[in-house]
């Protein structure tokens, strides 16, 4: 698979977690350590993944 395809798969996986964990795993956890903490870590993971990719960009005209 190309790098681009891997990135799309990773993105789809993140979106699947976005629904699966809060609604099916943490639905009875009425604490800050439940959905609140999950979504915070989950978004941080998405941001870090984007950074990993964008840091490899190089100037095409520089």
């Amino acid at each position: 698979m190309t790098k681009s395809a891997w990135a799309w798969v990773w993105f789809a996986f993140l979106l699947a977690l976005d629904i699966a964990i809060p609604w099916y795993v943490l639905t009875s956890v009425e604490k800050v350590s439940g959905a609140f903490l999950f979504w915070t870590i989950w978004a941080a993971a998405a941001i870090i993944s984007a950074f990993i990719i964008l840091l490899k960009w190089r100037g095409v005209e520089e």
Partner: protein
Amino acid sequence: MSATFWVWFGIAVYIAAGLGIALMARRRLGVGVSEFFLANRRVGGFISALSYSATTYSAFMMVGLVGLTYFTGVGALGFELTYLCGMFMMVFFLPRFWLVGKKYGYVSPMELLSDRYQNKGVGATTAILALVFLVPYGAVQLMGVGYLMNGISGGAIPVVAGIIIAVVCAIAWSSIAGLRSVAWTDSFQALIMIVTSAVVLGVVVAALGGFGSFFSKLEAASPGLLTVPTAGGAWNINMFIGLALPWLFFLISNPQVSQRLFIPKSVTAMKQMLGGFLIFGFIYTLISVLWGFSATLLVPGLENADLATPKLLSLTMIPTGLAIVVMIGITAAAISTIDSILLTLSSVWARDIHKGLINPKVSERGELRVGQWVIPIMAVIAFVFAWWAAGKTGLNFMIAPLSAAASAGLLMAVPTIFGAFFWKRATALGAMVSCITGAIVVLIFQITGFRPLGWWPGTWGFIVCAVLFVGVSLSTRPPKEKAEEFIGYLRGALKKGNFI
């Protein structure tokens, strides 16, 4: 002196500072359409990042998201962070928009679509979509400012006065020097937004005994708000998808933000823009949601959740001076969004409707003049909508759902945009039929409240739109030569820059 006096004083200082910055920007204004609407594609990374942040984050966050969290709990965090996760798609779209923008000289995202599909009808269709659905989104910003000024002044400043102030500032910021004045004032406003909101959160959390105590009190007082679906029944999966789906694709569906993908001056500036925005967005989202939760503890029982922020800022624990500075920060957030919307709509009207359909031979000067006239006209339309909606109550007229409803309409352009970059077989007819039909479905479902299977209007519209886009494209002839050239160029350029 009374709080109302200080509110007016704060507003006056803010307007004076913004006006000063906009006029400074005007000194560097060159000539031409690309200069006015895109600052000649020469914007640095720092300004690009702050301007993108201020344009994206609006009254929606510190008024709407706070209210939504107050009313419905932690699902609001998931919903907003889903948007931020959607920004991961920037690693695909930012370089693509930027590269073709430079190569073909596109001024608006709609012009890109017209050229790629070799049909001006595609640009005009998506332009009309933007004109229809960005008005309520712009109006939401105005409502936010109105509520806020009214709340902080204890009702002394009418909601409509706040709305008028926001309209006048937005017209000024966008007219004075186009994108230059918008980007510079945006950057100033983004800094006010994040610093002031963080300071208030610090004060509130300290008053609640620190983060540990705050979270313990929250778990004890409102445990139902910390899970999904919430105890009150909000945030079932249909509601989440209905609200989050338009947000997920906001980066490409909303032209006032996708147009910004044309402006960075270099790859380095592009990296700084995306990286800076992701950090800003993460922090600002957490602050907004924590404000909402703190309001559930400190000002419980509000009937209109959009008043959570004004009520929070009216508490005696928040010094009046700080509350006024924060009010300015939120006003700045709203105005920085609506001025960008006005600027984008004016470029879309001038380039994609006036030049594209009405008068193809118009001079660049004439095109610019048309665009500048559109700014106040769209502002007045948004004002009328805001005035009307501000008098209504209920979930559908809360700032956050109203914003998501507007974005649901814009979502209908998403398959067309994906097709432009990734599918050579995509056709103009597929694009137009899918956008128009999808938008009609969204409007009908939105107005009638009809929700088969409990799915929200944006969800249904998107399904209909995507199916039609693929189906009609497969049964019509694509612009083969342009598709090969456009996607072929991107393939080579992406490889060169190590983009994916």
